[in-house]
């Protein structure tokens, strides 16, 4: 890596004040250190947020809200009692199934939501990738794209790698951001990501001097269940080829509320409200879920090598819906 100054703040406001165009925030370092070592990123200053763990790593639940500090680890998320409610299962499942135990012990909620895409052109300085600014075409489209996006793309077919984002979408989470004015603001998680992601859009919409400090959401009404499922080529230490998070509330044998979000299929997490709407007022059934899943992938426009993601993603979504609706 290139030399850089390491800044270890004592308070989140110190970190925010130090941040700018030539700085990079580091939480667990899972994403950042790879990019530093590969020299695809060479900031002048790395601002290490880990000294702020005392205030930014807690997971708590009061009354009907769950709050996850941005520095909480995936392992904490997977184990916390605050997510024991069946309505929150999807989030704990996504965290507990990610990567490896070592990574889950280190990777953070904030890092997971804000990481760079894992596109193999993007993260290798030897390739002149469009999204990175090193090149003027998306090499993946004409090249190797078996792990790339099948929907929601413009001129870049990267996929968003976060596996916590889809469950947080279906839980209608908000993120708390410390801004340049020193004040915090809340925004819906979907506003964290570009609306119409292009090559020139960064992975997320936070400014260089803004810090994601927490994620929070209201625990859904009693009777709600959520579920997260993903497909992979191997079952440990691999990234999802498709992912689905769902939330269902059944009332009198009918689905009263539903939310669906797909992961690993597009440059941003893909909420699928039209598919969810098909479920409302219906009794859970294999036929219903198949129809909803088909609707969820109706806009898929895969390339040659990633066409498999459509049937696989459909199966994964049906699995998630089936599990969420399963009587327990």
């Amino acid at each position, binding site marked *: 890596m290139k030399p850089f100054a390491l800044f270890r703040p004592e308070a989140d406001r110190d970190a925010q004040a130090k941040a700018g165009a030539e700085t990079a925030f580091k939480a667990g370092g899972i994403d950042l250190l790879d990019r530093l070592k590969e020299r695809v990123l060479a900031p002048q200053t790395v601002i290490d947020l880990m000294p702020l763990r005392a205030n930014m790593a807690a997971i708590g639940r009061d009354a009907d809200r769950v709050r996850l500090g941005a520095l909480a680890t995936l392992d904490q998320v997977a184990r916390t009692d605050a997510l024991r409610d069946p309505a929150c299962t999807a989030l704990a499942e996504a965290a507990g199934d990610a990567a490896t135990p070592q990574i889950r012990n280190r990777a953070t909620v904030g890092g997971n939501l804000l990481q760079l895409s894992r596109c193999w052109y993007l993260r290798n300085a030897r390739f002149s990738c469009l999204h990175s600014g090193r090149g003027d075409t998306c090499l993946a489209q004409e090249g190797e794209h078996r792990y790339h996006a099948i929907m929601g793309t413009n001129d870049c077919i990267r996929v968003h790698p976060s596996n916590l984002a889809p469950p947080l979408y279906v839980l209608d989470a908000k993120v708390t951001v410390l801004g340049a004015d020193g004040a915090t603001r809340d925004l819906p998680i979907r506003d964290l990501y570009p609306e119409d992601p292009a090559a020139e859009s960064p992975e997320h919409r936070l400014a260089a001097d803004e810090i994601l400090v927490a994620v929070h959401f209201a625990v859904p009404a009693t009777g709600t269940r959520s579920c997260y499922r993903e497909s992979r080529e191997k079952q440990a*230490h691999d990234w999802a080829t498709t992912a689905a998070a769902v939330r269902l509330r059944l009332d009198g044998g009918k689905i009263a509320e539903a939310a669906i979000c797909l992961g690993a299929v597009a440059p941003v997490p893909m909420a699928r409200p039209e598919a969810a709407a098909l479920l409302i007022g219906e009794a859970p059934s294999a036929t219903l879920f198949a129809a909803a899943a088909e609707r969820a992938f109706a806009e898929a426009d895969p390339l040659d*090598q990633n066409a498999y993601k459509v049937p*696989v993603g459909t199966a994964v979504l049906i699995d998630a819906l089936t599990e969420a609706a399963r009587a327990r």
Partner: protein
Amino acid sequence: MSRHREREVEIRVGTEALHRTIKVQVPEDDPKPWDLDSKLSVVGTDVQRLDAVAKVTGRARYAYDQAPTGLLQGTLLRAPHPKAKVKRVDVSAALAMPGVRAAIATKGPGTDFVQVRFAGDDVAAVAADTLDAAIDALEAIEVDYEVEPFNTDYLAAEGAPRRDAAGQVTDPWPEEAEVEAALAAAAIQHEATYSVAVQTHSSLEPHGFVAWYRDDELEVWASTQATFGVQAGLARALEIEQSKVRVHAEFVGGGFGSKFFAGAEGVAACRLSRDAGAPVKLMLSRYEEHTAAGNRPAALIQIRAGLDAEGHVTAWDFRNWGGPGYIGRGGSAREPAYYLQRAKRRSVQKDLATDTDSSRAMRAPGWPQGFFAAETMLDELAAKAGLDPLELRLKNDSHELRAAEWRLGAERFAWDERRNAAPGSEGGRWRRGAGLASAVWGQMGSPGRTPHKVTCRIHADGTVEARNGAQDIGTGMKTVMAMLTAEELGLRPEQIRVTMGDTRDPAGPASGGSTTTPSLAPAVRGAAVQAKAELAAAVAAHLGAAADDVTFAGGSVGTANRRLSFADAAKLIGPGSIEATAARLPNYDGFQDFVCGCQFAEVEIDTHTGVVAVRHMLAVQDCGRVIAPKLAESQVLGAMIQGISYALHEQRVLDHNVGRMLNGDFLNYKITMVRDMPSLDVVLLPVANGKNSVGAAGLGEPPKVATAAAISNAVHNALGVPVRSLPITPDRVLAALGGGK
């Protein structure tokens, strides 16, 4: 070495079920070969790897861990173009940078090479105070390339066959009257094309060296599987006397066939050290490991074959197009000839060169790819003929020993129960299937062109050494040497101090072809026997007994009624120590010259997502005398794991437009890990082969031969259709089922 004074001994060889007595002419100073009737007290017992604790606690020092005072860090500049000529290299700006101590061109005018052969070929090298300073300096090296057109896809190379949308070769077969007549006469005929992807060695310790050139002598710590080969190679490259080159490789973090040579990195490390006047460490990065350190080549294999009405293979036509990279050779695929004794057959091998990194030997080079195709073809034939795959094997397998292994394996694996009698017909989401495949390997060790030797020393303080200059690449050869020495001296293995991996010690083999154990073991025993004879003579004189009456057992030495502890016996040694060096003698005729094996796999497939899970595997493998059962099983387990990974996950992905590897890491180059592991069962079938005084046989490679083929056949059984390409990824499973793409 002379065999003029030989004695004839009778030994009983083979297995208990399949044995015979043979006569062997044994040189006078070589002990009688161990046979079926030998009663051994250490060899064959359950001993822990002696350096296990040092390895798992990090105390074992690999080449990567060496850090002599003043160590500089070296790195190589890699060409960005798949094919180019280097017209000019100027390292002066790099040399002027702070912290940079040496910079050299490795290609271009003034060097031996101008041609860039693949993206990632070395062009220059730098040594600096830190690795980051060295990498910074690479950016300051000026290189003029004359860029040339390239092709990185072997199936787009000149001479590649045409294929249809399903990947099946459509080029006509060259004429061959006998084979074609046999095919025409066959009751069952079948033809198919198979393909395998490039697999990289992915050794945990990368290739690399710590080199220290001082006082006109060169000392290196190498991550290598050939200490003596590296010594000779570096002496040639640096133009210094071989006697002035010393190579250490006390611990090696894997090689799998990729670490036989000094390589660009070794030569550069030594040249940089010579220029800088300081030790230089140059270890490859993971990306360099994947892109510039060799691989198992890709292959496209087409087979047409026929069975007669009884299920005998009567025709077998095999052609392989190998993709071995720029080197253009080494892409051959092997066939299980023992099924084909009745067949009219032909084998055509053609290599298609590309502007990519060269293939290198990799754990049974050519075997897993050829056996995947051949054994999958046999199951396709069996399905057409309505035969059980095991029945087809038993009808055709000409090896008596493997026939016994098939029966043993089928019973232990519960073949009849696991084999899905109605594959693919039940329409359920999860489908189970079972498959099997065979293996063969012919390696009983050899003396080497000039004989390998082992030294045994017994010191007056009772300590015992066994020494050889070859490397223990990770198989546990040091433990094997300790066990063999302890067996002869009546000691425990942990009482023997073993030294390997120093070219100042007696010569030993390169670790290739599964030869290290069978080549060295007889010399280890021979040295211990000779050292023992010297100590026995001293003890006999001390006791006033005949030397022939002195025995070594249970830590004591002496006659039946007067015994000394080994430590007290050693006090009779001196001045100096007992030192005996024994040479590896040529093999006897023995029982047979090869080992057999077979493997069974059960898979479960999610037909909705295409994910294949291997649930259970069994390997039945013979390997001569099993010296250290735990280490031997470890070889088989490791090969099976690597084979599962080859079958399901591993593949080099190149962007053919740019000509570079995309997944040169452990993120997207997928290696099977713990959650994908089945239960693994290993049965080692002991065989007294009588080939030499120990009778060990090579075991590193044979268990890698059958694994992918057995899994492929299990997938075929589960789905009712074969998947003819490795790795068997979800997209391919869905395509085979007719869904997805």
